[in-house]
């Protein structure tokens, strides 16, 4: 009894405080509530509940009608209602489809029988048409009139009926509430997020018109059978500009549906767009985790209101004992364990940020919330997440679900991910769902690998793809449209892995199926373009032309395809022309695709790709300046699309480094290479396998510049990172070891060089055999080491075998094997044989890399020495001077090998008279270079210094 008495006292006290609260202005109200909160917590909660109830009652027009009308509404089910011959403007009311405190909603048809003229007509009940209700109804009409968005139910007409009833004619939405729609279709989380993004777009549109909805909840978001969401009911929406000029008081009656309300709606603080962000967070919680963010299913509005103000929202993964997680997981096509795993992390963080108590701590806009959801779908790092490197690296690994390990693969997965997402933006909901199914299929495929067994990951990726293809082909009863999309996607991956035979096969089947279903026109065009790319890579340029022509034709008849497909077609044509070496034609197409992208709001990533192609065409035309400018533009766009930390951005820096190398601008090439490396390290941390390729590229630039110590350090790092990240047998590591061996020869550390070549040979021979090009390069490296060590028989056997193999295969791209053999013959005192080999080497080097290059310069140098040894001093001098000229690809020919060339030239000239000045100048230059590259105390530096001192003394 005493307990009931106490309850009653609290209730009465709360009621009295609430009565006081009603009389106060906003600051006084806050003061009162704070005072009560300090004094008595349960009393405070009771008062808050009454304040919430006050608004809830107002918004739901609680008791607005007399009791008989309420009973009558129950009596007359909407479906049974007979509107008789009621007409409203040009509309005939067919049947009631809903009743509310404010009025009634009717399904109506246009009386003039216009096609498709079905609408929902909302009538304000005369009985409740007080000034306030009237004003609010009119306000709803004004607000809706401003909004035109595919995901907002449109206002078609408004006015007064003949009997003076106010009405709104709205787009009729024959849908289900979003949560029920998703559950009924057992939609997976990603598909739910895509529908949620539609809602975000609608709300963002309203916000852009300074309209806050204030009553977002699942029952106000209906989803049509085709998967399109429609936001309804702006009945309590508010123009923000009013809120900005006059303080929002509680009497302004913010919406209140406690389960989806924000704290400020309950406490009477100003309502802003952040209020809708909170509601979206609560809706997202419901959609993803199936439970309420606040309270439980059995909470009363008062309890809910208190929870919204005081309690932390329930975490997504917090399925209490009262929640049937098994049923929730089933409705999401998954198991409880998987659901928990999927919800943990990003999604939890996103929902928690949207549900912050303080509006300023929530996402700054609905767009920011949508952006994070989008990032999550792309497996990119979300903005709400702590800015930790470990987190970003994890995201990267998840996003690029193909096993990493080689630059080609890295590029491949980035591009797949980028294009998938770009395509999704414009796909129909049907296509978007199929795409998700495909993504999940692939994700399952690639994550099924035990990382411990994934040695030599390029190969395992291939095996996985084959496994996926078998699975698709074996599934004879699957959804044909899904199968077509799986084929198209697998074809895309095979194509990007360079496995064009498989790609062409899959894409051909996919195209045939897509042509017959005609339900996925965008995908059809995309696949035809990719098919064209595969054919082009196979060298079938006519076939590629035909495929692009098909794509172009389907593009013209498909209303769903947009400017992005037209850009892709032009890009594909440009690439075909590049393959034809018709760079002028390529540039025309590339220019057109870039111009088209510039004129329309396309995805920055797509525009970056077009610009990238344009730069390549310009490179082919030898317009290095334009190419450089366009690579820089592609870089800017790619940074815009994927952020400065994206490895794609790093790759573009790498391309710029290549341009710089082509322009013999090694210093700038170093800068670009280092930038690319820094980006990769920032994004992935220093130990990530894909860092290795950046280390190696930078190391090679240093090698060309003669910076052997830096080159050694970088290449050793590359090899180590690759070993710890991918495994000791990584083929990429074998490649780095070859480069390291070449650097070690220059250092010189011949023992270490021998080990590096031997290790490289072990890896490649074990994987692909002795005749594999990589194995041959390693064997040639061993031959050169042995030559320099004076182990001539062994060197001759090794170099001879490699040369024989190259002759057999008709390979002519390596000049160094020839001058190495020439040096062997010179060491065996057969300079004439050496001259023949060195001349051939020079011819090859000029063809392959041009006159001004390391290989031509070295061929000149070795030819000079061979001619000298054979007694042709004039020929020798001429070749050594030619070598120096060829080394001028570096300013002032400041290269260690150019120093050696100068030393040899000075010795040759010293035998003649009248050359003393030039001899001293050559020696001085050589000394300066060796001091710079090797240090003042290196024996090679001392050798030159002594010679210079001796010549000067003469």
């Amino acid at each position: 009894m005493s307990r009931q008495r106490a309850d009653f006292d609290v209730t009465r006290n709360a009621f009295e405080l609430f009565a006081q609260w009603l009389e106060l202005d906003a600051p006084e109200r806050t003061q009162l509530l704070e005072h009560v909160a300090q004094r008595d917590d349960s009393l405070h909660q009771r008062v808050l509940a009454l304040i919430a109830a006050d608004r809830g009652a107002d918004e739901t027009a609680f008791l607005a009608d007399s009791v008989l009308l309420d009973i009558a509404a129950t009596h007359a089910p909407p479906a049974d209602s007979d509107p008789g011959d009621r007409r409203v403007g040009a509309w005939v009311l067919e049947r009631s489809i809903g009743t509310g405190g404010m009025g009634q909603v009717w399904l109506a048809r246009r009386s003039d029988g216009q096609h498709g003229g079905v609408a929902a007509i909302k009538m304000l009940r005369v009985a409740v048409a007080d000034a306030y209700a009237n004003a609010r109804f009119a306000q709803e009409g004004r607000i809706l009139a401003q909004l035109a968005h595919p995901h907002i139910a449109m206002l078609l007409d408004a006015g007064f009926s003949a009997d003076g009833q106010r009405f709104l004619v709205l787009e009729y939405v024959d849908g289900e509430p979003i949560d029920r729609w998703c559950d009924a279709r057992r939609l997976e989380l990603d598909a739910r997020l895509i529908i949620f993004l539609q809602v975000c777009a609608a709300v963002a549109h309203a916000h852009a018109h300074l309209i806050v909805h204030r009553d977002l909840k699942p029952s106000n978001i209906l989803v049509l059978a085709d998967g399109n969401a429609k936001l309804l009911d702006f009945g309590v929406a508010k123009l923000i500009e009013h809120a900005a000029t006059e303080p929002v008081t509680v009497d302004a009656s913010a919406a209140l549906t406690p389960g989806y309300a924000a704290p400020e709606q309950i406490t009477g603080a100003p309502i802003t767009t952040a209020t809708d962000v909170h509601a979206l967070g609560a809706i997202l919680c419901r959609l993803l985790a199936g439970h309420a963010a606040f309270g439980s299913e059995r909470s009363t509005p008062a309890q809910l209101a208190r929870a919204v103000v005081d309690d932390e929202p329930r975490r997504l993964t917090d399925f209490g004992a009262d929640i049937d997680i098994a049923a929730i997981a089933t409705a999401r096509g998954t198991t409880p364990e998987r659901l928990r795993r999927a919800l943990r992390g990003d999604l939890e963080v996103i929902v928690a940020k949207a549900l912050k108590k303080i509006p300023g701590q929530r996402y700054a806009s609905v767009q920011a919330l949508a952006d994070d959801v989008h990032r999550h779908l792309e497996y990119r790092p979300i903005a709400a997440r702590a800015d930790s490197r470990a987190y970003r690296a994890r995201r990267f690994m998840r996003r690029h679900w193909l096993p990493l390990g080689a630059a080609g693969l890295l590029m491949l997965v980035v591009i797949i991910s980028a294009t998938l997402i770009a395509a999704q933006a414009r796909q129909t909901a049907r296509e978007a769902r199929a795409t998700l199914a495909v993504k999940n299929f692939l994700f399952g495929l690639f994550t099924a690998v035990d990382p411990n067994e994934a040695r030599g990951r390029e190969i395992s990726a291939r095996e996985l793809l084959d496994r996926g293809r078998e699975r698709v082909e074996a599934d004879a009863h699957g959804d044909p449209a899904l199968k077509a999309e799986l084929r198209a996607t697998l074809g895309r991956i095979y194509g990007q892995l360079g496995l064009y035979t498989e790609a062409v096969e899959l894409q051909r089947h996919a195209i045939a199926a897509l042509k017959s279903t005609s339900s996925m026109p965008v995908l059809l065009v995309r696949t035809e373009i990719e098919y064209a790319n595969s054919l082009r890579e196979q060298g079938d340029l006519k076939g590629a032309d035909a495929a692009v022509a098909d794509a172009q034709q389907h593009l013209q008849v498909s209303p769903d395809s947009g400017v992005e497909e037209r850009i892709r077609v032009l890009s594909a044509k440009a690439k075909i022309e590049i393959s034809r070496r018709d760079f002028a034609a390529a540039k025309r197409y590339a220019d057109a695709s870039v111009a088209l992208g510039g004129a329309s709001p396309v995805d920055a990533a797509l525009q970056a790709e077009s610009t990238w192609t344009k730069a390549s065409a310009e490179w082919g035309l030898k317009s290095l300046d334009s190419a450089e400018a366009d690579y820089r533009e592609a870089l800017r766009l790619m940074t815009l699309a994927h952020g400065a930390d994206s490895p794609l951005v790093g790759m573009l820096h790498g391309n710029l480094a290549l341009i710089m190398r082509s322009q013999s601008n090694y210093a700038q090439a170093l800068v670009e290479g280092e930038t690319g490396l820094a980006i990769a390290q920032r994004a992935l941390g220093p130990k990530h396998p894909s860092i290795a390729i950046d280390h190696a590229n930078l190391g090679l630039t240093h090698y060309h510049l003669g910076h052997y110590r830096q080159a050694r350090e970088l290449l050793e790092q590359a090899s180590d990172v690759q070993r710890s990240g991918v495994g000791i047998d990584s083929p990429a590591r074998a490649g780095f070891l070859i480069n390291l061996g070449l650097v070690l020869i220059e250092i010189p550390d011949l023992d270490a060089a021998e080990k590096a070549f031997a290790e490289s040979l072990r890896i490649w021979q074990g994987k692909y055999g002795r005749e594999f090009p990589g194995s041959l390069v390693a064997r040639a490296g061993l031959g050169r080491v042995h030559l320099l060590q004076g182990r001539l028989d062994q060197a001759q056997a090794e170099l001879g075998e490699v040369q024989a193999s190259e002759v057999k295969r008709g390979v002519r791209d390596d000049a160094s094997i020839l001058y190495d053999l020439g040096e062997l013959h010179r060491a065996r005192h057969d300079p004439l044989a050496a001259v023949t080999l060195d001349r051939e080497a020079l011819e090859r080097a000029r063809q392959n890399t041009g006159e001004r290059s390391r290989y031509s310069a070295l061929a000149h140098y070795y030819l000079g020495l061979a001619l000298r040894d054979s007694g042709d001093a004039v020929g020798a001098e001429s070749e050594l001077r030619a070598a120096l000229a060829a080394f001028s690809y570096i300013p002032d020919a400041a290269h260690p090998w150019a120093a050696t060339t100068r030393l040899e030239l000075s010795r040759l000239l010293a035998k003649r008279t009248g050359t003393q000045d030039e001899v001293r100048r050559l020696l001085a230059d050589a000394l300066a270079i060796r001091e710079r590259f090797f240090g003042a105390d290196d024996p090679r530096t001392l050798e030159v210094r002594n010679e210079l001192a001796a010549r000067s003394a003469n």
Partner: protein
Amino acid sequence: MDKLTEIAKGADDSVLPADLDGKLYSELMRLARAQLARAGTMSLDAPSLVHEAYLRFQRQGAIQSVQRKAFFAYAAQVMRSVVIDYVRERRAQKRGGGEPMLTLTTGIPGVGIGEDAIEPLHEALQSLALIDPRSHRVVELRYFGGLDEAEIADILDVSVPTVKRDWRKARAFLFDALGVPC
């Protein structure tokens, strides 16, 4: 009929005829049934049943114009009893007949409270009577009696703003007590 009418008699007895009780109940119940039977085409702006009953009784000479205020106050209480009885009767029928519950899913904000919420409302109103008797009466006169704010102010002998304020307080109390599911 229950103790509500007893309270009413005690509060305002001398003016009304002693036999009004039974007659008024029968008349209001009859009017209510008639009106609810026409539910689909019910005129939304028709005068309330209390007004209708008053006119009828006045024409029959059963009541005088000067008794108007007392009659309205009393009739609203009777109307409340009529409604509660009617709803209970309906619910008993429904249990037998298995008529499906109505669910309203519309875009319009909120829905009027359904038949099933009327009994809980009646109970919550009894609690309110203990805490704030005047606002309890405002609800009775407005929601059950169908009277407007000016009439209520007249009957309770207070100003219209006071009626508005009492109404708002009471409405919040009842909304909270009912725990209308959202």
